[in-house]
């Protein structure tokens, strides 16, 4: 059984340096961040984030600017659709629905990302251990 209190720091500790020396040595801690950035879990996280955030942002920006653009420069939204309510109002109300739906889509994805973050921590620690 390995000692559960044993901490892996990095090469610094393997060289016999003590903890305080290590903490003053930023170059060593940088390695940990590089290692984290190279883990497969981090690549997976960033791929998943990009695949959601970029299309979602393009979509909501286009949907959002569609309203003032169409309203200001065309007559397309001037038709009455429900009673006296114009299409412009329907479009504006749809923006509320769009915001809430996208928020919850983001929330469900982001809650899964939290699990990937836990894997990044484990993989980084393992990589750190292997490199010693």
């Amino acid at each position, binding site marked *: 059984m390995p000692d559960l209190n044993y901490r892996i720091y990095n090469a610094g500790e393997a060289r016999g340096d003590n903890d305080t020396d290590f903490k003053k040595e930023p170059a060593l801690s940088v390695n940990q961040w590089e290692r*984290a950035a190279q883990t497969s879990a981090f690549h997976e996280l960033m791929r998943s984030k990009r695949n959601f955030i970029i299309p979602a942002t393009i979509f909501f920006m286009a949907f959002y600017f569609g309203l003032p653009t169409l*309203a200001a420069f065309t007559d397309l939204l001037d038709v009455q659709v429900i*009673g*006296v309510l114009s299409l412009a*109002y329907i479009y504006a109300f749809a923006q509320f629905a769009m*915001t809430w739906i996208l*928020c919850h889509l*983001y929330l469900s994805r982001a809650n899964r990302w939290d699990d990937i*973050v836990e894997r990044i*921590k484990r993989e980084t620690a393992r990589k750190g251990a292997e490199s010693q």
Partner: protein
Amino acid sequence: MNPVAFAFFLAVIALTLLVTYWASRRNVGASTHYVAGGQIKGWQNGLAISGDYLSAASFLGIAGAIALTGFSGFYLSVGFLVAYLVVLLLVAEPLRNLGKYTVADALTSRFNLRRVRAVAALNTISISMFYMLAQLVGAGAIMVLLLDIPYSVAVIGIGILMTIYIVAGGMIATTWIQIIKAVLLMAGTFALSVGVLAQFNFNPLAMFEAATEQYGMEAVMPPELDLVGGLDVISLNIALVLGTAGLPHILIRFLTVPDAKAARNSVIVATWIIGLFYLMTPILGYGAAIFVGRDAIVEQNPAGNMAAPQLAQALGGDIFLGFITAVAFATIVAVVAGLVIAASGAFAHDFYTNVIKGGEASEREQFMAARIAAVGVSIGAMLLALGAREFNVAFLVALAFAVAASANLPAILFMIFWKRFNTIGAITGMLTGLISSVGLVLISPNVMGESAIYPLENPGIVSIPLGFLGCYIGTLLGGKRDEARALYTPYEKIYVQANTGIREEEIEEKEPAPRS
């Protein structure tokens, strides 16, 4: 003087002072002062963000704008809400992961340089001051009308209250005052909406119909605009949707929660509350137009700022008017409290502790500096508000949004997402955004009237691209000559930290393994 209004006012003041007293015993250092020790829960922060965000411009301004102009006023509601998608998807979690007490902290987590921090602090102060002036001028106007006291007494009174809240209770008091305000504002808005809809058998379509019968079809349609007018609408909408993600008093709310998950949950809660509020704004606006009448609204205030209180009086007499006025007052103090914390953080934490003292101030000194700065900011805002009585409230808020979107947002986004970004890019971008947005307003019809050089009222369509361009060109020009490069935190660290929230010690102390 309306005695019921006076009683409600006193009740709000007493409640907020009670909260401040309770918070003062928990406000023990710089961390509790600036970010409530990072211990606010997600749902609490969601309510507090709503209380921080829904300002006099939202409650009084939009109701009046819809009452007087119909559909055009609703752009503000849509833009102020959709802006939270930018906040949630792009900045809330990275900011929580990188920041400490201020927006400048997040920027300097990558570029630890005094000049970067100084420019970021300057932006925070400028944006917060424009925003605060709008709130104080608005608050002064309401109190003059309803309590029959002089404008200067009203402004000084609010300023003194602010100082007490912040100096004694810090962010803990601010958070709970904002939560109370959010509940009061939602209750007040809901009561007004029910009051209006009850006249139409709870059929909103009948309300829209009544508005068109009285004011014609134009009341529910987007107005016919020429090219300049159309561009102005687009320009306003750009600033609305991008501005929120650059407002310091909103961004620091994400530093009051323990982690990214709580930051995310707080945006979801806030988006629901804020969205439901804005969904009710047409009911308030058209209700006021129908039951108060446009002429009576304009007679009271040319910009329509009194439409919501006037509607309350028409529906429920002096008692309802008193309640709604107190809600408006609570709305304003909660927003101003958030602004004082943001601006005093820029003075005390950024300028004093880090730029002047180089980060070498004791906890006691930092706490002291924070409180002195809060007093200074309150007095400064009071003096400015006394001189700015004639300023249009909506114009000041729109200016704050434009500066936030032009000066803060580009640097924040590039800092998180662009590897090559450097200090010269950050400083150039932040200054370009600040100078161009304020400069364009100075030469716009808002200030110069007929002889304006810049034809639009809203600077965003020009100044926001300039802010991004400033960051980009500054980075390219600065490139190899950037001598500060050695002081950068490596981008890998920012990239991993912003996206995961992993802290230094977490990946150093993880998992036991045999020594090889």
